[in-house]
């Protein structure tokens, strides 16, 4: 948002409060990463350790699989490092 298009003091809620819970989801941190985790679904045992250890909640837990939410993944590599069956590899992001 450019400076001019940001809301003025008359329209924002008082006291600097934020009324929309989870609005951080509008801020995609995915462009932070230099490496992206790639999950090999064949090897994945659905242990969910990558899911619980992700600082960003960027591993989405589905019925029987997990997948990376690349909108937010910062490429920290914890998931790859912790995966007990080495199902995740960190691949360099290409420009």
């Amino acid at each position, binding site marked *: 948002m450019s*400076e001019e298009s*940001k*809301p*003025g*003091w008359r329209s*924002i*809620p*008082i*006291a*600097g*409060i*934020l*009324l929309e*819970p989870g609005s951080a989801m509008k801020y995609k941190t995915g462009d932070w990463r230099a490496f992206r985790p790639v999950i090999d679904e064949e090897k994945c045992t659905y242990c969910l350790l990558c899911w619980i250890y992700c600082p960003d909640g960027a591993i989405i837990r589905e019925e029987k699989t997990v997948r990376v939410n690349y909108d937010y993944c910062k490429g920290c590599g914890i998931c790859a490092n912790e995966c007990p069956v080495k199902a995740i590899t960190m691949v360099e992001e290409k420009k």
Partner: protein
Amino acid sequence: MSRIMGLTGDGAVAYAVKQCKVDVVAAYPITPQTLIVEEFSEYVHNGEVHTEFICVESEHSAMSACVGASLTGARVFTATASQGLALMHEILYIASSLRCPIVMGVVNRTLSAPINIHCDHSDMMGSRDCGWIQVFVENAQEAYDWVIQAFRIAEDPDVLLPVAVNLDAFILSHSLEGVEVLDDADVERFVSTRKPVFTIDPDKPITVGPICFTDYFFETKRQHVEAMNNSPKTISKVNDEFAELTGRRYGFIDTYEMDDAEAAIICLGSTAGTAMAVAKKLRDQGKRVGVIKPWVYRPFPAEQIIDACKGLKALAVLDRACSIGAPYGPLCNDVTAALYKENVRLNVFNVIYGLGGRDITPFDIEAIFNETLEVAKTGMIREPIKFVGVRE
């Protein structure tokens, strides 16, 4: 039906808090506010109130707990003085910026060093920019009345700002006076229950107190200024309703014989009472003197003061605090700025008095009035700032 009770200034505050059905009091004792918390503790332990009284471990935590409680939607009160006010200083700004309608009794005692437990206004003046509404009272009756009105003012959705009610240390806090108190039911009806505008409700999650960078901070401060600037409407409305209930009419300032005064004193707190008594004596001698006693200090009642000064030729501004290094003491800085803003040319001089509880006597006040009359006559200010009562 009202009745007269013998109450100290502190006692009057505690009694008002009791009647206002406050939900949470978080306070730390400091002389001479101690009677407020002690008397209130008696009410709590005797089951006379249902207030959650948190005996916090410092004033900083007192105001912090008050902010937490206020954000939860509770009616909140605390009291402090001097060092305690200074210790909670950072949280004062946060309380007002987060729009918490907390009411606080401040028993004006000087700031160290040296340590001194007696009256001057340096404590509130040290925090006057914190964005709170600030009221000064002359006696225990006013303390009682303003605490009750303060809850209505603070909690009004058009205001939502905390209110500090200032009373002089020992002179008011510990002196017994006859105070006309209202019926519990009348007070309850007057203040009613708090209806919060926003709360940290677990069912309707909000985020309070985020970090705000250069792109948004200024807007929130602008809103705060607007709230303070809008508060006079509510203050007047509450004063009107209170007058209807009690017959006691409050406003932004109290005046004594200002209609045709040519020389006047303006001051805050209990000294105004002495000034009015001296003014009466001088009036009997035919001298045209008057007194202006601001009740509301923030928002500064510039309009009302300038109006009261119509026809005045000289004004002595009495400050019970220094603003070291500034052109004048705090009240005088405000008064002269207000006059300048409206292009009102009036001979003003500043009197710094009473620091650390140094007594100011009727003789001192009479001398000040005479000095003011001299300035009115000659049009010349001999001393822009006088220190009255200090040994040279």
